[in-house]
């Protein structure tokens, strides 16, 4: 089986956004452009996350799903604001292949069972946002805004019993920082996880991804900043001027490296990690 590179696109109000520790969002442009670009460059999966779906009306993401499904022939998974089978149906019918739930599943775990009975386990993935506490790892919801008191390991065991087909674990403290993954976290959860596991949060360089695959038994990795800043292009659309400002100033100052999908895959392959090229 090949390790998967998943492009994670967080969407807020029609824009691709990226924050640090799930906060301080920066507008990066049209999500459709990025999804198509990543597909052409050989990404294994696209993940759209509507990050304010639980706060606002969530219709806009449907448009992105249908456009992307027409042009992108790899798995498109969608998360954010999915609360019942009607929501799942709507998302799948517009062209998505897989859905992921977080807040709704915590609030009503039975939802996982209901959904997996109808759509099959492999269509239902659970996204867990977690942060280290003095006693272990705690599960958070609403894009890291809300504590739940749930212990990570217990939650993993529970959702698997209910039929979760895949688990994405986001390390909030590492997310957006581009300083590497929470290796201890993914090593620790290994003995609790019996379904495919995706790591998210911290990829800043190819070495980080290599280290993750070499030391942890994860099936895939969700990448955001590392790709978005590499494929960022000047946008002439006036609505996105904030983004141009960023490209013209900050990007130069911080000297963002261009790390292509191909370069990541080639490096992984050279180091004995099985990837699809």
């Amino acid at each position: 089986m090949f390790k998967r590179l998943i492009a994670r696109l967080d969407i807020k109000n029609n824009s691709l956004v990226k924050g640090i520790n799930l906060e301080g969002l920066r507008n990066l442009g049209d999500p459709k452009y990025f999804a198509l670009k990543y597909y052409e460059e050989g990404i294994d999966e696209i993940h759209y996350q509507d990050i304010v779906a639980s706060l606002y009306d969530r219709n806009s993401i449907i448009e992105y799903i249908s456009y992307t499904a027409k042009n992108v022939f790899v798995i498109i998974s969608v998360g954010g604001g999915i609360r019942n089978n009607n929501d799942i149906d709507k998302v799948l019918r517009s062209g998505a292949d897989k859905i992921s739930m977080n807040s709704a599943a915590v609030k009503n775990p039975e939802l996982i069972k209901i959904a997996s009975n109808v759509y099959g386990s492999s269509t239902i993935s659970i996204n867990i946002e977690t942060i280290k506490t003095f006693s272990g790892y705690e599960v958070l919801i609403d894009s890291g805004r809300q504590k739940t008191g749930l212990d990570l390991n217990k939650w993993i065991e529970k959702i698997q019993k209910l039929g979760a087909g895949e688990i994405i674990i986001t390390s909030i403290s590492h997310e957006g920082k581009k300083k590497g993954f929470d290796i201890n976290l993914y090593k620790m959860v290994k003995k609790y996880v019996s379904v495919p596991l995706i790591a998210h949060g911290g990829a800043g360089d190819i070495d980080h991804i290599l280290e993750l695959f070499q030391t942890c038994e994860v099936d895939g990795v969700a990448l955001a900043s590392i790709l978005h800043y590499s494929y960022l292009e000047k946008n002439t659309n006036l609505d996105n001027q904030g983004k141009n400002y960023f490209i013209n100033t900050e990007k130069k100052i911080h000297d963002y490296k261009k790390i292509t999908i191909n370069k990541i895959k080639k490096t992984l392959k050279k180091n004995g990690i099985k990837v699809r090229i």
Partner: protein
Amino acid sequence: MVLKSEFRNKKKSAIVGIIDTETANLKSVIYACEKNFLKVYLIKKHENISNDIDGLIFPGVGSYNFVMEILKRKKLDKFIFAFLKNNKPSLFICLGMQLLFSYSDEVKRSEGLNIFPGSVTLIPSNEKRRVPIIGWNIINQKNKSNIFFDIKKTDTFYFTHSFYVSPKNKEIISSESEYCGFKYCSSIAYKNIYGLQFHPEKSSAAGLKIYENFRKLCLV
């Protein structure tokens, strides 16, 4: 998509009927067809259109007994039996392929279409072998199947499933795949019936080639 009345005028390009059980990732399949110049007609219930379509696709997402019940309720099972009699090409994807067999133990023991004798069972998991299988894998072709024309040994396909088929008649196995030491049937071919455990519409360029091969089969 085409309307039924337009059918006969558009015979030059292949028209494919897609079974719509209302649980599947239909859009991806429709878009992959359209990308390969296959015109699509959605079949939601039993209707007499076998002569008007050049091929049939049954995409599958959903759970076995749930989808089987829908097939029966809408008499789509009868439609499939009738269509297969005329020997036009048909492509059964993922759950679609599993439903061709006798029975499955997903959720509870449920009977399938029983076109091929054989069972659908859960992939045995262990510490290393996580189930469901989700991701990309290669296929080891067993015999030359028309649907795999021009498909290379190194081409990868996207799998997402917890169950696998064990055909009684091993001759129909057209490829096998291996997942953490577990070898299983990843596609079948019998006459003009093709079954794929993986999703060609989600397998990038190699997968689109399979749709192109299917279009050629439809035009024969």
